[in-house]
């Protein structure tokens, strides 16, 4: 997923501009034009619609949309869910990357495949499995219900579904990077007498911090924006189990377009901030890699 500046930079040589490794200028312009047109229609227009619709009635109407207590409850719930799900997957991501990248053991490629598994499961199916497990007709549902513990149509179910859907994000960012970096830095720290924890904190963590932050951002964006899995387990109880994306759905279905798009614009802003930080990190990344020691 991560994009880096991999195109070799060459000394400017205008006299060789249309050399053998480039297309003629008209062809280049045509290709750039087609690509930009496609991206505008499929990506930029929908984004523009979100903000245009949100502000259609003016700023006052936009702000009124957030005065709704249900809207506020949805925002609070979404933040709560992300605040639980992201740290859980952060700890898992680091543990999984450490085990997979630093050691060799039988079944490693199977483990990597299993870590990726939630990527290829439909979010709706992810919600369904928790209903089957914890729902009133599920395996554990009656027993938990007897104990007064609610999972489905309550916060724990929403957290579980979110954790499932965002499960691989951080591990996915860390594993390839840590595999590339190898074990030499950690071995060096150990020969210098550092403990395992100190080695991790002072040597490994600085080496992976940008990728880690990037993974956390992606994980968070997905956690806050997850719709399908949460829709299945939440029960859509207003003011109680409605997350921001579910609130968008309800407003939209009630033809409260400003309300729907106002909340959508908030989520879209989160996405834009995430992308902006991600691009900044990749720019930093590329710099760090270019000036790093030539291994």
């Amino acid at each position, binding site marked *: 997923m991560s994009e880096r500046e991999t195109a070799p930079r060459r000394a400017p040589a205008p006299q060789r501009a249309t050399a053998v490794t480039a297309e003629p200028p008209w062809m280049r312009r045509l290709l750039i034009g087609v690509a930009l047109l496609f991206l505008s229609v499929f990506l930029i227009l929908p984004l523009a619609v979100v903000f245009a619709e949100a502000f259609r009635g003016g700023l006052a109407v936009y702000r009124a949309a957030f005065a709704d207590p249900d809207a506020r409850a949805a925002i609070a719930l979404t933040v709560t869910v992300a605040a639980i799900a992201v740290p859980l997957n952060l700890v898992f991501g680091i543990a999984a990357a450490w085990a997979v990248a630093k050691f060799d053991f039988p079944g490693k490629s199977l483990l990597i495949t299993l870590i990726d598994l939630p990527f290829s499961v439909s979010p709706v199916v992810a919600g369904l499995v928790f209903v089957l497990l914890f729902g009133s007709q599920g395996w554990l549902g009656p027993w938990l219900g007897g104990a007064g513990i609610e999972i489905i149509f309550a916060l724990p179910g929403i957290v579980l579904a979110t954790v499932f859907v965002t499960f691989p994000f951080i591990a996915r960012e860390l594993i390839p990077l840590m595999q590339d970096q190898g074990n030499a*830095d950690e*071995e*060096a*720290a150990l020969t*210098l*007498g550092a403990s395992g924890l100190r080695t991790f904190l002072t040597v490994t963590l600085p*080496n992976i911090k940008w990728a880690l932050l990037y993974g956390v951002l992606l994980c968070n964006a997905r956690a806050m924006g997850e719709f399908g899995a949460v829709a299945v387990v939440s029960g859509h109880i207003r003011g109680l189990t409605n997350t921001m994306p579910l609130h968008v759905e309800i407003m939209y279905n009630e033809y409260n377009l400003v309300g729907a798009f106002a909340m959508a614009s908030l989520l879209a802003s989160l996405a834009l901030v995430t992308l902006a930080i991600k691009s900044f990190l990749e720019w930093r990344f590329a710099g760090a890699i270019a000036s*790093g*020691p030539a291994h």
Partner: protein
Amino acid sequence: MDIRALGITKEFGRAAALRDVDLEVRSGELMALLGPSGSGKTTLLRVIAGLEQPDAGEIRFGDVDATPIPVRRRGVGFVFQHYALFRHLTVSDNVAFGLRARGRSRRPPPAEIARRVRDLLDLVQLAGYGHRFPSQLSGGQRQRVALARALAVEPKVLLLDEPFGALDARVRKDLRRSLREIHDATGQTTVFVTHDQDEALELADRVAILNGGRVEQVGTPDEVHDAPISAFVMGFVGESTQLPVEVRAGEVWFREARMAVPPQGCAPGPATLFLRPDDLAFCAPQDGWPGQVLMIRRAAGGRRAEVKLAGPGGHLVEIDLREGEAAMARGDIVHLRVRAGRVFPARADAAQSVESRPQSGRVPMP
């Protein structure tokens, strides 16, 4: 502190990297582990450091069995092949890392750490570079930082894995001398791994030659060069060419010519005669074997001729040209006689490995 490896065996998968290796590194000694790729020299170094656990055998530091001691408490300084400098830390912080990693009771106060870092950077001639980051240094400078960092923890033994492998020839030469100087100044027991025989012979007090996971010979540079105990060592250390000979009745015969070389305890039967370039001499036609000069080139500061011997097989030998012989040219017919040489029983693998690169005697990289 003297280091001993006793019966070290280490396997990776099915392949044995080390087979029952015994080695003693004397206190204060600078020892080279020399061998071709895959000979197990780096593995042995990592076993000494505690970065690998041996499958069998024991590592002793003085009287202490170090085998169960984890790497972080073993007190070794390790210089990695690609240095493994922490690139988010400055040069000073890299050097100070080991001191700061100590428990509170053993950690020197910050001022003392700063002083030691300064001293070490002086020692490796990097005074004034403390605030830089590894990425702002040249390869040779990074190597020196890695050395200073390893020395900072006052290790019982300094271990270096291919310390000059990634550097160009000039920097290599400078660093070799400064490693020798630092060793002489600190008296640190030091072991380094190399595949470059010049580096091993020039720098080390003693050289251990490894082949196929075994130690073939341990000795001073002179001993391994002048008194090799196996065909492998003979072929790997120094330059040599070889002739297939036969040992008969206490004499060495090349075809129908008796060589002026004793069989040196070699049993009767097919054998290989190894000749250093100065083991051969030009002579009058009646005293020696005829051959044709194929090529003359510069080698080791002098001139060397490659001569193809007459007769079936067309064996190639090399001979150093002395003063007065400089007029020789390609295509000349010359006569050679053997003044000295060493005979080892013919061994298919050794003969093959040396024959494929007759000009240097080094075993080719796989």
